[in-house]
């Protein structure tokens, strides 16, 4: 792990200018590969300054024929990408986008890609187009996940939500804990459990207490630490839903879909 040092900024300047000696370039690339936001920022800044330096070249226009030649040559290529030569030399080798996690990056990248697309009408260069498409895809995915989170957060924060802590029955195990929040308006519920790791060959099953009867809401599958969060829709009619219960059943759940066959280990009623 190479920690960011001031010396790296010297290297970033040389890198943007395309004038680093090989050993320095390798050193900086190794450092960048570990992810360094300060250096990435510096590179973008120095690269902007390099454009100013480039613009100091005496102004000159190529012959008008060049424009026609370039357009014709590209037309002849039909945008083909096969067999294209990679950039050589010791100037900035643009690096492939690294795998990055986190929403912040997705938003930033999307903003950057969209800005560029707008600025240069870059409909055609396939590389950018792909990047844009993939960024948009990630953005849509992130938005979906966010919407989903918001939806369930709304259940938890609903003003008229009904909440109950499920408490142990005499058949229960002391460590079991559960809390249920039910939003009557959307008929959705969020239930969180702790220590619901079922004994071998058994499953915990969740039930809605509906008036005089019960309805199965499915099995509770805990993660490795024994936690589980269930987000359930169509949990039951607000007029009749009284609370929830958990039973310990044979693996796969109660053989009787309409009622628990094993011991009820936890139960909780709203307002109880």
């Amino acid at each position: 792990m190479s920690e960011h040092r001031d010396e790296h900024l010297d290297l970033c300047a040389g890198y943007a200018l395309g004038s680093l000696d090989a050993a320095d370039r390798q050193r900086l690339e190794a450092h960048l590969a570990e992810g360094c936001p300060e250096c990435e920022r510096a590179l973008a800044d120095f690269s902007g300054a390099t454009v100013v330096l480039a613009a100091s070249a005496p102004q000159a226009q190529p012959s008008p024929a060049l424009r026609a030649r370039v357009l014709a040559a590209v037309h002849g290529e039909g945008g083909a990408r096969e067999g294209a030569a990679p950039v050589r030399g010791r100037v900035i080798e643009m690096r492939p986008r690294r795998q990055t996690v986190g929403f912040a990056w997705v938003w930033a990248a999307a903003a950057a890609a969209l800005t560029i697309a707008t600025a240069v009408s870059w409909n055609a260069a396939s590389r950018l187009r792909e990047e844009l498409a993939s960024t948009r895809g990630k953005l849509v995915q992130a938005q979906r996940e966010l919407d989903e989170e918001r939806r369930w957060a709304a259940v938890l924060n609903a003003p008229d939500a009904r909440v109950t802590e499920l408490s142990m029955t005499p058949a229960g195990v002391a460590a079991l804990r559960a809390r249920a929040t039910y939003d009557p308006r959307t008929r959705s519920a969020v239930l969180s459990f702790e220590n619901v790791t079922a004994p071998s060959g058994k499953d915990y099953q969740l039930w809605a207490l509906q008036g005089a009867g019960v309805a199965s809401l499915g099995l509770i599958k805990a993660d490795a630490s024994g936690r589980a969060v269930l987000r359930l829709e169509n949990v039951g009619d607000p007029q009749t839903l009284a609370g929830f219960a958990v039973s310990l059943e044979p693996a796969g759940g109660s053989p009787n879909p309409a009622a628990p066959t094993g011991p009820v280990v936890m139960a909780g009623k709203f307002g109880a």
Partner: protein
Amino acid sequence: MQAGDEKALAELYDRYTPLVYPVALRILRSPADAEDVVQQAWLQVWKGAAGYDSRRGTVAAWLLTVARTRALDRYRSVASRRRAEEKVDPEPATPPEDPTASATQRQMSDRVRRAMQGLTPQQRQALEIAYFEGLSQSEVAARMQAPLGTVKSWTRQGLTRLRELLPEEEWV
């Protein structure tokens, strides 16, 4: 290729060639060679062969990188051919200003020149020979008879100063 794509390329060409071509010409000193290089660079970009990373810089910086690399490659091969033929020309004079440049271009070009004048002579020289002659920092140090560390400082200070004198937001 679709009509829309051609239009997009034409727009890109018109927008960035005024930036890219002078760099190729400054490096190669020959309009014919510079035009060849610019054409190759556009083809390479179009084929998507040169990766673009938006975090590392603008589209302009990217296009310049592609064109400069090709121009320096061409320059080195021409130079080695010349050396083989033992006909080393003295460095040709800088081409004169283009009289057909638009008012906006000329105004921008004035601002760039003023920004360059805001550097110390050493900073300016270190940047120019590295960029336009393609010398590595140790080669620049040998040429300027200065320690490598000093060249690195000049490079960083020079680019930092340029950025301050002409921030990207103010580019026309």
